[in-house]
């Protein structure tokens, strides 16, 4: 028996009928065809399927879709502006060579955004701690850490400009 759920994904409303055991990652990737969210392990050990659900990071592979009925979800596709203009975190990832194969990047970017929302001035230790559930096999994390730091600085600059 399918259950009706409502989701606001990247600002867009969806009414869906899902089986109670359907995982959120499958709804995002298959029903909504937002394939930016990656499948890495299916057991919550890699962070590839990280999503922001009502602003909180959540692993799509460990979350039932029915459990997030009514939630607002952000996927990597919802981070950049509609016209393709990149978010500051994405820009920082590019500038700091934080992207190699790119498979962990969506999860990393979302985690970084989450961190910066909570802590606009994170230390390197804060950053490493925050992304510890997101595995990267290419970069050795240095570039990612640099990128998050740079994003934090830009955010401050940006805020300062906005304020000034």
């Amino acid at each position, binding site marked *: 028996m399918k259950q009706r759920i409502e989701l606001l994904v990247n600002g867009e409303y969806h009414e869906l009928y899902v089986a109670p055991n359907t995982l959120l990652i499958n709804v995002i990737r298959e029903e909504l*065809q937002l394939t930016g969210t990656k499948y890495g392990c299916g057991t919550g050990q890699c962070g590839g399927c990280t999503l922001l659900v009502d602003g909180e990071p959540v692993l799509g592979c460990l979350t039932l879709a029915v459990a997030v009925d009514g939630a607002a979800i952000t996927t990597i596709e919802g981070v950049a502006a509609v016209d393709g203009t990149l978010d500051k975190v994405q820009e920082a990832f590019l500038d700091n060579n934080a992207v190699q194969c790119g498979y962990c990047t969506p999860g990393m970017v979302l985690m970084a955004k989450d961190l910066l929302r909570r802590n606009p001035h994170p230390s390197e230790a804060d950053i490493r701690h925050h992304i510890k559930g997101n595995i990267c096999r290419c970069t050795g994390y240095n570039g990612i850490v640099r990128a998050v730091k740079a994003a934090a600085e830009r955010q401050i600059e940006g805020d300062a400009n906005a304020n000034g």
Partner: protein
Amino acid sequence: MLEKNHQNSGAQKTTSSAADRYQVIGKPMPRHDAWPKATGETIYAGDYKRPGMLYAKALRSEYAAAELVAIDTREALAMPGVAAVLTAKDVPHNETVTRFGQTHTVGGFEGLYRVLADKKIRFKGEAVALVAAKTLAIAQAAMEKIKVTYKPLEGVFDPETAMQPDAYPVGEDASNVVCSYKVRKGDVAKGFAAADVIVENRYRTQMVDHAYLEPEAGVAWLDDDGVITIRAATQVIEHFRGIADVLGVPQNRVRVITPMLGGGFGGKEDITVETYLALLVQKTRKPVSLTYTREESILAHSKRHPYVMYYKTGATKNGKLVAMEARLISDAGGYVYLSPWVLLYSTVTATGPYDITNVKVDTFTVLTNNTFTSANRGFGANQPCFAYEAQLDELAKKLGMAPLAIRRKNYLHTGDALASGRVLEHAVETEQTAVKALEALGPPSRPRSDRQRIGQGIASGISPYGRMMFLHDTSRSFVSVELDGSATVRCGVQDLGGGQASTLAQITAEVLGIPMEKVTVFHGDSSLTPLAGTTTATRQLYMSGNATLKAAAAVRQNLLRKAGTMMAVDPDFLDIRDETVFVQTARKPWVITESESGECQVTYGGDRGDLIAAEMCPDPDPDKTLPLRDVIRAAAADGIALFNVAQFNAPARELIDFKTGQGQVWPDLTFGTVAMEVAVDIETGTIEVLKLISCFDVGQAINPLSAEGQLEGGAVYGLGYGLTEDIILEKGITLTPTLSEYLLPTAMDTPAVRTIMLQSGGGIGPFGAKGIGEPSNVPPAAALANAVANAIGVRVYDLPVFPEKVLKALGRI
């Protein structure tokens, strides 16, 4: 002269010296693309899907002639699920000029190309706005919400009216005449004075549709590198340049991929869905899919030009043609597209395959508010054929000669010149094709009732293969061998269903001495396969066949050099057969010559493939062999290139003299004859085709099964032109928008076409092949009209030969 006569399809391919000489060439074999098509696995343009794909629709003008006053898209844009609505103002470069995959600009031929209608509507069906939405249903609903304000204008729908100085201007220019050409040879006045009989008639051909089974379709997306990638049914992947120009992005940021096409016939030569898709992807950054409905296809893509043709032909009493004067007017419809090129083809072929002493030809192509016209299989060769062949029969009738007899007095032969002065240096076997075709037709059947009349008719046709020489045509192909002995071809050909890709596999297999199944062809990708030019103008076997032959020959040469070292034999005496290198004692090695101008001539195994007595190998040891795979591995270990990318350059000439029409337009031409027998019901006008023989000099059939298929299919394509197909327009409005009104021949209307292939070996394609894709459909309509005239004693001068026209000609209505 080699001849193969295929009464039945399939297996009983005769032994000929070609069959002995080649391992793969000349052998009937299933094409490599046939299996996935038979089992439903081929993914055509409209079958493809991308995650998150949007669906597009094009809103089209309701009027054939109107001023576009205003477009209000707000309501459509506000609908949930609508991602984009575009009008002319959203197109970065809405107005450019039409180019046709050409890399060499020739002044004076390009016409205005407008992506979306702006200011003035020129034909009904012109795209006014584009919509992309989450579902097709939403896109459709949004399209209905776009408010367009038109101010209807008078319009002009008849090309002869449109030529008048005070005619309604279709476009922005005062004159509707797009261009005109002349051919002048001798003095027609003197010629007619010397003629014993003269016939003068007005002929009219109708507008027809390509009616490929696959409507225009494509899917486009932004790839990971931000390149706009378009996977669409197109005959010209090199439109990527024109698309990039419209979008205002560098040409290397647009990629066009073409999967197997569900037919093209010239209708997918101009851009159809590609630019629309690219614009919507640029706007939404999401994958977008667009497939035309059948009605849309009939309304909005190009058609074959309707012609009005005035022909005056004079002959002496023994049947020699001494003068011909022709005036041809073609209806270009709303936009120029390929009309100037098509007209040039008609102009130069207006005299047919005949030697006429004095010739005067004047041709015009004119804009009207009808559906625009452009390339359609035959490209301007079909219309004059209907007229010049009717003229021949009328003259024969007046002179009391048989149709074949008058033709035999006048056929051009190898070494003769066209009225345009071009000397036909390659094989011209028209007379042979006519003799064979008529012979195969046999004596007329007996009528089955007193209301039935039996008639027989023949028509010979002339049409080129290869593009116009002033376009400086080129093609490229990549061939490599793999370590396991298989081979790979990468070539930018578009495969329309004629076996364009499969042929390349066959050529490669022949050259490398491996079975065809061991060759894989990757085709039709503007970014990843070497560009091979357009699949138009019956040029791919000629151009890309030769490029592939050249590349494969280079790989072969590298391998044989290595084998020579390994076997201690001069590589010139080595050959490959059945994946084995051996000492060849019976034929000459490869000859590839390239002139200083870059023209290329490829010859295989001696003079056009003839067996030549061996210059005996100094150490002929038949037991000395090496498996090809071992040679490949040894060559690889040595770092010898296992691949080659070759470019084939067609011979180039500059523009012809437009005052006289003198000059050389094409590299070579194909000649053939169609013979038909019909039964006409003189009370209802109903025509039944009893026999249809198609005889062409194909030069060399690379794959006889495919070549026969082209002749059979071309014959029926041409039969439909003669019999039932008619895009009927009333003030620019199509009255035949579906396939129940636009009548293609069905299996019930079609006789079992009998094909006769002459194989002169005298073509300039690989192994002496000529192109036959387009030529095969040129004579059938003319043959039908001649057969009907023979049956009923009077002639129908307008195509198609509808039953009603038969009764009118008979004076019964």
